[in-house]
């Protein structure tokens, strides 16, 4: 373990709190919603192009 600490990779991960978890969850949810709405926009754009 000593040499890992020396290379800056201790192999340790910070333990998450409930707040961290909630924050990450909201972030992932927003990301998914954004992706969904972008898909809808894409689709409408494509339909408009097709109609023209």
């Amino acid at each position, binding site marked *: 373990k000593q040499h890992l600490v020396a290379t800056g990779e201790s192999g*340790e*991960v910070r*333990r*998450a709190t*409930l707040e961290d*978890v909630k924050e*990450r*969850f909201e972030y*992932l949810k927003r990301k998914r919603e954004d992706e969904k709405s972008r898909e809808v926009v894409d689709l409408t754009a494509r339909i408009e192009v097709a109609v023209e």
Partner: protein
Amino acid sequence: MAHQADAKKSLDERGYTGALIRGDNPLKLFEKAVRDRIVDSYYWKEQCFGLNAATLLDRAVELTFIGGTYGVAQKPTPFLCLAFKLLQLTPDKEIILFYLEQEEYKYLRALAAFYIRLAWEKDADVYTTLEPYLSDSRKLKRRIREGWALTHVDEFIDDLLLKNRVCATTLPKLNPRLFLEDEDRLEPRVSALGEELEELDHDDERDSASDG
């Protein structure tokens, strides 16, 4: 507080200093053969390394099926790998409850339920925490040994409370509900069917009476 990113140290019998479940290293809740397959898997090495209870969500929200091991090589599912990761992290109870209670991701709920059944030591708590989700009728895809099957959140919960083996794992002993009721440690379960139950019961009896 911090923990090791890798599982090797957690599985070293002498070096283990982490949280205990039922007086033992929680990772030992999985059988040795399954543990070895998880630790050797690509998903574990590439996708689970260095996760904590917050970043684990990145993977958990991408889950598209539950299951234990599959195929000739008995490959572990991502679901099983993440459950193993949770046993390594032993997150605070409130975090696990957050996973369970959220509505958006049904596979995350299933993962939390599986963890609770494995890790919680008080039988009555396991029943009262999981049973409300017997009313969650959402579909779950399940990887079976050679193929796929359809199940539902409520069925999965029921399996966790009733069966001995779920997802390639022998579940820790759980006293039957009736036993706990007799000991006054648990109130009888109230079905989410509510008043509908009587109606359904009646309809059914009438049907079977006319059949016979």
